C-alpha cells in the first residue's frame, strides 16, 4: 500500500512525531511505500538541525533523517508553517534576509500543495496529531 504521512506536532512535547516515525518505519519494513512525509503546524519543528537532546534520549530529527536516507523518503516541511516558526533552508533564509538557516539534511521546504498531492496520490493519508 502507498501511504502519505502528515505530522502536526513538534518533537518531544507530543508523541505524534514518535508514533509517526514508528509507523513509517514499520510500514517500510513490511514493504509498503511511503509517498511523502509532510510536516505541518508545530510538526515543522521536527526538521531543525539545531535540535540537541540529552545524549541518553532519542534524537528525533536525526532519526527521521536516517530513515529518509535509507529509504529515499520525500520529507516536506510546509513553507508557511516553517516561516512562522523560524525554520529555514539556505534559500529561504536568503530570501527573507536572515543570517542563518537551520533545516536538517533530507528535509525540504515546499508548499501545502505537496500535502494535497500526497492525499491524492496515496492510498491512505495518515495524520499524526494531538
Amino acid at each position, binding site marked *: 500500500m502507498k501511504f502519505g504521512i*502528515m505530522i*502536526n506536532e513538534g518533537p518531544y512535547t507530543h508523541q505524534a512525531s514518535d508514533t509517526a516515525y514508528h509507523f513509517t518505519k514499520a510500514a517500510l519494513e513490511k514493504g509498503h511505500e511511503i509517498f511523502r512525509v509532510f510536516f*505541518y*503546524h508545530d510538526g515543522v519543528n521536527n526538521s531543525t538541525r539545531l535540535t540537541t537532546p540529552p545524549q541518553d534520549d532519542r534524537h528525533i530529527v536525526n532519526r527521521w533523517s536516517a530513515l529518509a536516507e535509507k529509504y529515499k523518503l520525500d520529507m516536506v516541511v510546509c513553507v*508557511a*508553517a516553517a516561516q*512562522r516558526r523560524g525554520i529555514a533552508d539556505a534559500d529561504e533564509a536568503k530570501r527573507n534576509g536572515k543570517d542563518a538557516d537551520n533545516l536538517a539534511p533530507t528535509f525540504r521546504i515546499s*508548499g*501545502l*500543495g505537496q*500535502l*494535497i*498531492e500526497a*492525499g*491524492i496520490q496515496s*492510498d491512505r*493519508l495518515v*495524520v499524526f*496529531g494531538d
Partner: protein
Amino acid sequence: MSDDEMMQEGGTIKKFCYVNRKAPYGTVYALESLEVVLIGAAFEQDVSLIFMDDGIYQLKKNQDTSDSDMKNFSPTYRALEMYDVEKLYVEKESMEARGLTEDDLVVPVEVKTSKEISELMDEQDVVLSF
C-alpha cells in the same frame, strides 16, 4: 482507491474532508487548517468541511479580536464559496451544547447529527483532522 473516485481531465478527484474541532484563537490549528483548504481548492477535489466540538466557534458571527492582538480571520469563511468550497457541515450536538443556532454563524451550513457526520466521514477518501 474507492469506487467513488472519478476521473476528470486526466486527474483523480478524491473526497477530501477537513474536520475542524478547535476554537479559532487559543491555538493555530483553525487558521492553518483554513490555509490548507484554500490551497487545496486549486486542486479541484471534492471538498467537505466539518465543524464540530469547539470548532463551531470558528464560524461564530461578530468575532472581535481587537483586544487580543490576533487577526480575525472569520471573514475568510465567507470567501470559501468563491473557491468552490460549498459543502460546510456542522455537528448538531456540538452546536446545541454551545447554545448556538445556524443564525449565529457567518456562513450557511448544513446541520447534521453525530451519526450523520460519522457516515459522511466514512464516505471520504482523505480525512484531515485539525
